[in-house]
């Protein structure tokens, strides 16, 4: 456990000093500001627009940062050779990979906290008071999605270079966003196999589960049980992806 925590600490430190970090925070803040302005202009209910527009930006910022960081943490370490010196140490590959991932999640949590503080400030400035449970849950589920996308990036990075891992993660993330809507709108002439594959994909890889914007604005009601199932789904996916990544990574040769 000790070496894993050391690796996590260093991974977090490296990400905190990463060039993407500050632009990501600024981008999160700007999106919230824009959402605030857009809410003022809109004719719909203020809070709904704030959450619809702001959530989209929040979602995009976090998932993109998770993609970049996930690929950077692993692929770049492989290509620039720093992986070589870290794995020459008495550290198992599983500890290294899990430590790196946990550091990455810590980095995402820090980004999440900073953006949340600003979001709360916007809400206070508009006399909405402190965030309520649905809104907090909305953001918590967004964080689960970020962590999931980061796990996907880590998975691809264990066997692919930076560019391939980046595009593969991006495509997988988009597939998760559209899998359910596509499965609901298949043309009647689609063959049986295609329908089966798309429906299966929509069941196992459906990132829509983590979008609670309708719930946060009171448009949709979700039971506590359903929320638990969705959170569990996210956590299980992360565990599966990281386990598979570890299996791949254990067998790889380290060659810069």
């Amino acid at each position, binding site marked *: 456990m000790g*070496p894993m925590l*050391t690796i996590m600490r260093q991974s977090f430190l490296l990400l905190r000093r990463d060039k993407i970090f500050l632009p990501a925070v600024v981008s999160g803040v700007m999106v919230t500001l824009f959402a605030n302005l857009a809410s003022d202009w809109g004719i719909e209910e203020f809070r709904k627009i704030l959450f619809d527009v702001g959530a989209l930006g929040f979602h995009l910022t976090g998932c993109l940062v998770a993609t970049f960081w996930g690929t950077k943490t692993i692929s770049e370490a492989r290509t*620039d050779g*720093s992986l070589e010196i870290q794995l020459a140490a*008495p550290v198992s590959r599983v500890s290294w990979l899990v430590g790196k991932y946990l550091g990455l999640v810590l980095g995402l949590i820090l980004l999440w906290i900073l953006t949340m503080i600003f979001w709360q400030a916007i809400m206070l400035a508009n006399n909405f008071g402190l965030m309520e449970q649905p809104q907090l849950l909305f953001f918590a589920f967004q964080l689960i999605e970020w962590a999931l996308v980061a796990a996907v990036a880590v998975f691809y990075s264990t066997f692919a270079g930076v560019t391939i891992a980046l595009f593969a993660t991006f495509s997988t993330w988009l597939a998760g966003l559209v899998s359910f809507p596509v499965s609901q709108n298949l043309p009647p002439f689609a063959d049986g196999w295609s329908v089966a594959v798309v429906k299966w994909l929509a069941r196992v890889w459906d990132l829509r589960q983590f979008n609670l914007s309708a719930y946060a604005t009171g448009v949709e009601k979700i039971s506590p049980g359903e929320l638990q199932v969705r959170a569990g789904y996210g956590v299980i996916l992360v565990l599966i992806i990281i386990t598979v990544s570890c299996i791949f990574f254990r067998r790889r040769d*380290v060659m810069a």
Partner: protein
Amino acid sequence: MSQAPEIKVSEVTKVVYSDVKKLAHTIVKDLSVTFRSGRSSALLGHNGAGKTTTIKLVLGLVRPTRGNVSIDGLPVAEAQRRRIGYMPEVNRIPPVLTPMEVMDYHLATYRPEQLRDGARSRAAIEESLRHVELWDHRNKRVGKLSKGMARRLAWAQATIHDPTVLILDEPMSGLDPTGRMAMREWISGFRRAGKTIILCSHELVTVGELCDDVNILNKGKLVYSATNEDYQGAYRLSLSGIDEAATAAMREGARLPDFRRARREGFAVHLDFFDYAAAASWMLAALQRGVVVTGFAPVSIFDEDVLLKYFGKELES
């Protein structure tokens, strides 16, 4: 301190496959080499000869396709890697970290028990950074350090946990003359302490000064292996000119029991003897005949004609 271990690479073959066409490429083929306990061994060869892959096999970073690598008879695992200090050819330290953070991380992965005692771990880091004259730069980012400083940091990182095996890949690269002298001294210190050292370098003078054994790789195969003992007491006598007297002296010398070999090089003749006394007495005889003696020196395992044979044009240049 535990005894320095012996590292054995036994009949190892490493095949890699290209990413695109999946073509097989053998980097190391049926390689057997032993890095003996407490000895300093050089690993030489052209670029692409398989030196770095051999090092990575020892570090457990690369798995052999066939054969095995062992440290004191045990497979390379975490416990064994704890005994190894590794300094790669290129600095692999993240540029955004400070020397202090680098050393802290390193100590924590190699000696996690030392972390519990904050004062002890800080003292170890301070001692190590002072040793390489980086203590005053401890809070500077690695990216802001000069190349020489970064190399010194790499040395500190490789040795802070007091390893019994030291693997050095081109340790002198990027160092100025003062830095090279210091590095040579540090490596000599490890050698005197009886640690096992594996040194990869293209600088034959450095290797000659610091190593007891030499192993030359070519196209993934071990083509030459010798130890200092093989040449213990051997001396070389160099004669000028190819006149009759020198040629006759050479023939006469070749008949002596302690004679090893003779070689012409341009207008010079080199005669190698297994024994100092034989070489000296023969030199006196040669001088009495009027032969001009231009050199009298010990022969090292890094005998240049042997190395020339394997290095060819690279050494000549």
